[in-house]
């Protein structure tokens, strides 16, 4: 009789194990799942009203049975606007951050690992991009990108045959993703580079090198998993900033177009009117801040869970 072979746990299973025992992180995770479901599935429900239908006879109404969160300055249902706005904000938070992290991770690790003249050159490029005033760049960018973006929308409609109401809110966000993604990766690239440099002369890397592994394998298999922790922490902290940036950029004409909305825009509109109609600020802000809090809990838990140095039990 042979004893059953004890299967080793992969690092990811191991991480999940640790994460699932962290109550706060799991709470954050389930809350995020719930928010995503509410924002993306919720609007399909028949009782959710249209977020764009105006009723000038009932502006600024208090919450009631018909309008759960009340109505805004044009008499639109705030509950529906918060849900639809959430779609945009979550999408921006995930996609734009994802783009930024991906670019930053690759750029920073290559720069840090290879070092020397190339490292100098790559970091000076980052310095130059950092020095450019962001908002001015964005305004210039919005002038240039306007036509291609609407042509892209037309193209998508023509090739897929989907209705414009479904396509346009997403495709008009493309310039926004590019704008945020193209600037947001700078800090991540610096963090990753610094991390990679501290690891690249440690014993386990030397060991991998002496085994004859290639650069790619050493970098992505042995060094990057160690770098993931700080990157995840930075990412969870960056998402709130990026979601807020979206509202600034939308105000400058890059991104969400009225009557569509996002949490950032709803909060901005609500903050303007907080003396007269508190609900307009309260509800979007509640959704926004609890999502960010959940993200932070989750990020904190992920950092602990993904740290290969944390004790294995």
């Amino acid at each position, binding site marked *: 009789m042979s004893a059953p072979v004890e299967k080793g746990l992969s690092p990811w299973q191991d991480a999940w194990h640790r994460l699932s025992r962290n109550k706060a992180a799991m709470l954050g995770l389930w809350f995020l799942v719930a928010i995503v479901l509410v924002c993306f599935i919720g609007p399909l429900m028949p009782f959710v009203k249209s977020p*764009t*239908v*105006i009723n*000038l*006879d009932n*502006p*600024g109404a208090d919450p009631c049975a018909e309008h759960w969160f009340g109505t805004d*300055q*044009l008499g639109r249902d705030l509950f529906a606007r918060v849900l639809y706005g959430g779609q945009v904000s979550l999408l921006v938070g995930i996609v734009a951050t994802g783009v930024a992290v991906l670019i930053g991770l690759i750029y920073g690790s290559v720069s840090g690992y290879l070092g020397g003249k190339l490292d100098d050159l790559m970091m000076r490029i980052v310095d130059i991009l950092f020095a450019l005033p962001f908002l001015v760049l964005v*305004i210039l960018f*919005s*002038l240039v990108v306007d036509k291609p973006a609407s042509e892209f929308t037309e193209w998508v409609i023509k090739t897929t045959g989907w209705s414009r109401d479904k396509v346009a809110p997403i495709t008009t966000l493309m310039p926004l993703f590019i704008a945020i993604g193209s600037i947001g990766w700078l800090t991540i690239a610096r963090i990753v580079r610094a991390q990679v440099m501290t690891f690249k002369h440690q014993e386990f890397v030397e060991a991998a090198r002496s085994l004859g592994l290639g650069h790619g394998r050493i970098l992505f298999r042995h060094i990057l998993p160690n770098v993931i922790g700080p990157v995840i922490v930075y990412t969870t902290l960056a998402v709130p900033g990026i979601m807020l940036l979206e509202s600034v950029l*939308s*105000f*400058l*004409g890059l991104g969400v*177009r*009225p*009557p569509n909305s996002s949490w950032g825009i709803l909060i901005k*509109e609500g*903050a*303007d*009117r907080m*003396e*007269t*109609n508190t609900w307009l600020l309260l509800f979007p802000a509640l959704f926004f801040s609890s999502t960010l809090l959940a993200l932070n809990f989750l990020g904190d838990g992920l950092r602990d869970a993904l740290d290969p140095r944390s004790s294995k039990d």
Partner: protein
Amino acid sequence: MTRRALFLLPALLCLAGCQRETQVEKANREGILIFGNSNEPKGLDPQVVTGVLESNILRALFEGLVSDHPSDDAAIVPGGAQTLEPDATATVWTARLRPNAKWSDGTPVTARDYAFSYERILTPEFGAKYAEMLYFLKGADRFNKGETKDFSTVGVEVIDDLTLRLTLRGPTPYFPQVLKHYTWNPVPRHVVLKHGTMTQKGNPWSKLGKIVSNGPYQLKSWRRNDHLEVERNPHYWGAADVTLNGVRFLPITNSYTEARMFRDGQLHTTYTAPPEIVDLMLKENPKVLRQEPYVGTLFIRCNTTRKPLDDARVRRALSLSFNQQEICDKILRGYKPAYGMTPPMAGYDTPHAVTFNPEEARRLMTEAGFPADAKGKRPDFPRLKYLLASRETAATTAQAIQAMWRKELGIEVEIENKEWTAYLAAMQELDYDLAGSGWIGDFLDPLTFLEMWSDGNGNNLTGWSNPKFEELLKQSHQEADPAKRYAILREAETIMTAEAPVLLTAWYARNYLLDPSVEGWYPLLLDNHPFDSIRLRTK
């Protein structure tokens, strides 16, 4: 412990004491008016800037031949000129300047300064956006359009240091009204030439530390995006009668923030009051809320060089299918539905051009080749872009109009926000479909609302022109009799509004907040309040 507490005590007392006096109370003691001015001025050169917010500052710094009256828009107050006399036909005007008028550096103001300024603004290379304001002068348009290089062909004549003779294109009995506009202000020739050439773009003479002015005030400090402050000009001829010591202009873009600052006692007056604040103040403190008529028109420019907006029927359909009354009552508060381009003005009967008539609008749309399908949508009608400058209340109105067009005509427009500079650039290059705009009268005459639509005018920006309209405007310039002149202008306006190069939205009202300590501030149609006669009550 005890020592720290003792140290804290005076600090706390001071804090409590300081909090008791608001900024406004402190300013009242110092005799300084704190003025919410909406945005950072683009500059202080009277011949370059074009905005209302810049004009507020220029009114404190500069003085033209005539000045504004604190309570009567129509009254003429002698300014830089002691007397201003027309000839029998009101075509040639002779101004005798004050011998004691001085620039803030002590140099006398002479007729040469005025002539220099008029030549400067009219020189085509200088590219002044507001040069059309001086087309009242004989030959000014030819000189400004580069048809002649000889400034002596323009009706400006320096008789001697203190006498200026202006010859106009035709009889203009209301000319003193026009002269109140800041484009007619003199600039200091000696200072402009010291820092550059006459027509140099971006000549730095009007920067802090260099600028010299002839009005009741001179520039004291200017920190970008923080404040701009003016103080008494000791060389001003009427300095003894100036009651207010200075004005501090604050560039607060967000009107809700501005209202919040006012309620905290940080401002004497706000630039505007958004609808929610109007409602709130009516309940809370009605005596600080001012709702006054204002000569201005809110409209949407149409780019008439683009399809389908080149068709007057389409433009009219758009114009007839949104409910102005509802927008005024429920969003803009106090504004009036605009049935014509020119807002109500004494003696002028604005022709009725626009009413809410969705039935007629649908008919016009179908006639123009955009029939409705079974669901009431118009699938052939292209998706127009509706350009906006990023401002809060503009977006609210635009979304209401967008929804009304969807409901009444079955068409979709896309609202596009742009930052102010990008918005202006798009309009100047005719790179837009529809653009939310407004116009505030420069002087009390229908001409200020009509002349801008003439061909090639720097403020037209719609690509629209009409030879009959041009002809009538020209005719009005030669008409001396006010009643006949208004009849001609009325005909011109009828032609213009029938073709609807702009979709009229509303006539402005001025909603703003004013602190009760401000005295000598009266409702004015043009909203040009002279600062020098304002008093601040301290308790």
